[in-house]
Structures are given as C-alpha cells and as structure tokens.
C-alpha cells in the first residue's frame, strides 16, 4: 500500500462513519404536526421552547414546543380539549384536535409498531 491508498481507505472509513452519524441524528426526538392527513410542521424537540401557529379547520392553532415537550396553547374549538390536554413528552403520546383536524405526534426511536389506547 502506498501513501495514496492509505489516504483513500481513510477517506472511505470517514465517509462510512459519517453515514452512521447522520442516521443516528435522524433518530432524535421530534414532533410531527398534521392537518387532515398532511404533515404541515415538524419540530425538533431538542431545541429551546418556541411557539408555532398552524391553520386548523376552525382557525389558527397555537402550538408551543421545545425542551422535549409540546402542547397546544390556543385553539378555536367548541370545547378546547386540546389545550386542556396539556403537555405531552413521550413517543406515541398524541394530541388530537378533532374539530380542527390537527394531530400532533411525538416521534423517536420506534419502540412499538403501534399503541392501543
């Protein structure tokens, strides 16, 4: 092996480990926000708390997310069940705002294929 071969092998190893790192990072904790069936917002929950506004069926829905949790702060709906539900933090917890057709799900390493409520 000459010098260039070694450099090449080194580069290959670097690239492979880079791939592993990228895949690991994908598995961080994040929240998906759906309107009807469309993914409208994806929030990385490892970031500091911030508020977001998405359009629901009956009006704007204000979502506060960050530091590992997410909750609905304000919504236009008859019973405000979503904002009453409060914070969710763990995977497979959901906030479902039926009147607004908004669903918020926390995703991370998928431990279960699905969860029966």
């Amino acid at each position: 092996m000459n010098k260039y071969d070694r450099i090449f092998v080194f580069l290959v190893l670097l690239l492979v480990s880079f791939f592993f790192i990228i895949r690991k990072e994908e598995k961080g904790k994040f929240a998906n926000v759906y309107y009807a069936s469309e993914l409208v917002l994806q929030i990385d929950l490892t970031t500091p708390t911030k508020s977001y506004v998405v359009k629901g069926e009956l009006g704007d829905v204000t979502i506060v997310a960050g530091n590992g949790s997410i909750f609905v702060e304000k919504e236009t709906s008859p019973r405000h069940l979503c904002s009453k539900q409060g914070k969710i933090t763990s995977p497979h917890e959901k906030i479902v705002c039926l009147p607004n057709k908004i669903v918020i799900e926390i995703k991370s390493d998928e431990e279960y294929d699905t969860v029966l409520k």
Partner: protein
Amino acid sequence: MQEKINKFLWIGVIFLLFVIVFSFFFSKKEQLIREKRLYYMDTYIYVKLYGEDTQKLDSALEEVESIYKKYHELTNRYSGYPGLNNVYYIANNDSKEEWIPLDERLYDLLLVAKEWYEKSNHLVDVRIGKVVDLWKEAEEKNVLPTQDLLDDIQIEDLILEDGKIYNNHVSLDLGALAKGYASLKAREYLEENYLDTYMINAGGMILLGEHYGKQAYKVGLEDPSRNDGSVFMKVKAKNTAIATSGGYERYYTIGEEKYSHIILPNTRWPENHFESVIVITEDPLKADILSTMLYLMKLEDALEYVNHLNDVEAIFYVSEEEQILSEGVNQYLYE
C-alpha cells in the same frame, strides 16, 4: 505485481462502499409504505398499507377511507345527510311512513346488533341512545341523574323486516360495534384485493395484517390509569384485531366522581368493574363487541366466558396493581 494487488484492493474498497451506501438506501424499501390519517366516528384513524404498486396502494387507501366514512355517516347519531336514512334520521324523522327503507349496509349492521343482543345476554344493547344522552346532559349540568329520570326513559324496540326498519323513532347508539364493523369491511376489501400487509389503528381498535419486515407487530397497550401515554404491556400479534373498551374513552365527570362511558342497559348506570378490557381475536367486529360485553360483566364471569372460547383472549385491567389475563394470552407475550 504490487500494483495489481493495489488495484484489487481499490476495487474491493469501492465495491464495499457501494454495498454499504446502497444497503442504507434500499434496506426496508423493497416494500412501499402508504399511510393516511382519517377522522371519522369521533376517532382519529391511522391507516398504513404496504405493497409494491403505488397506484394500487393509493386507491386502496381511498377505498378504506370511503368505508370508514360511509359507516360514520350511517351510524351518526348527531347529524343527518341528505337522502341517507341513517341513525339520526331513524330517531328524528317526521315521516308518516310506518316502515323506513334502509341502506343495505346499515340494515346488515343492525341485524348483527340484534344477533349480539341475544348472544350477549342483553348486555350489548344498541337501543339505549336516550340513556346515553341523559348521561351526557348530566355531565354538562354536573348533577347525577335521578333513578326516576333514568327509569322513565322509554326504550323502543328495534324491529327489522325486508330491508326496512319499523318507524318508532328508536334512538340507537352503535358505538359498541360501528368501528368493529367498519374495520371488518375494510379488512374484507383489503384481502379481496390481495393486500395482506396492513395496519389500522382506530383509537380503541387495532387491525393487523402481516408485518412488512418482522414476524409480528409489536403493539404497546397504553396504561389506562396513567395519563402520560405510557405502556403497561406489550403484545406481539399479526392477522388479528385488538380492541379495548374503557381505557381510551373519556369519562363522565360528575362532581368528584368519574363514571365510565359504558352503560349497563339493565340498570342504565355506567359500569366500573374495570379500567379497561382488551380483547384479542381475529375478527375485529367480535373484538369490538366482546370488549364492551366483557367490560359489563363481573371479572369471574368474564374470565370464565373467555376461557371457554378457543379463539378469543382478553386482558382485564382492574387497577394499576391488578391485571388479569385469560388462559391463552401467553402466546401474544414476549418472553
């Protein structure tokens, strides 16, 4: 010579690189995944299909949606639809006709409901719409209904003949079987179209086909006594249905007390033997109905009933400290 070896080494390394990169991109991607989120029957319904043909999967998703939508409309207690004689219409119509013709699908569903009224020893009774309304009203007023008020409710008969229902304005609540029935129809459609790899999660009802990669699905059962989405048990299952009664549903909160949403037709009071009952069996309709029926039974009776059935298993969540399993649940548990 040295150069030749180097060349082989280079080719080998490049080949390896390709294999690694490709395996990242194409592992688990031989099968396409299509998913859809639906909102029917007061429930968030998640549908996931696997297959090789995008078009076929997309049209199957549409069809599955139309099935849930149709049964949502037919069984809706709170609103009518133009030209559709649904549950709302049956209870609230001002037609002079003695008999009302029904959509074949609703008629068949009601026949099944009648059949289970007998099979369940009158525990599963779909005619108690007015009782349910009274409990809803009680929650809004935050006052328990009096026994007199409950006893005074007139419960009409459900009379069916030749595709028609007798027009006595019977107030139906098909909550105990509507989701199970629609899920059964969804499965029939999928299997007729050779789609055997699917998963539908409709709140208190999970419908499983084959898993796309693993031997079976790993299903978490949410802990009904906690409010944080944590799981108290996990089961492995495929080609089956899992239904729950209790757990996922809201409670009537009247004063400080919580009352379950499942009413014992006999007393017209909510029953509280369990926090939830989970039923595992192949037929989603049976799973749905049995979860309600078992929820209304005493633990000993319910356990005996299930243990006498070969193809049905159940998990009785009595409290955080006590969960009772039927005899054959073991086959679904992880070692």
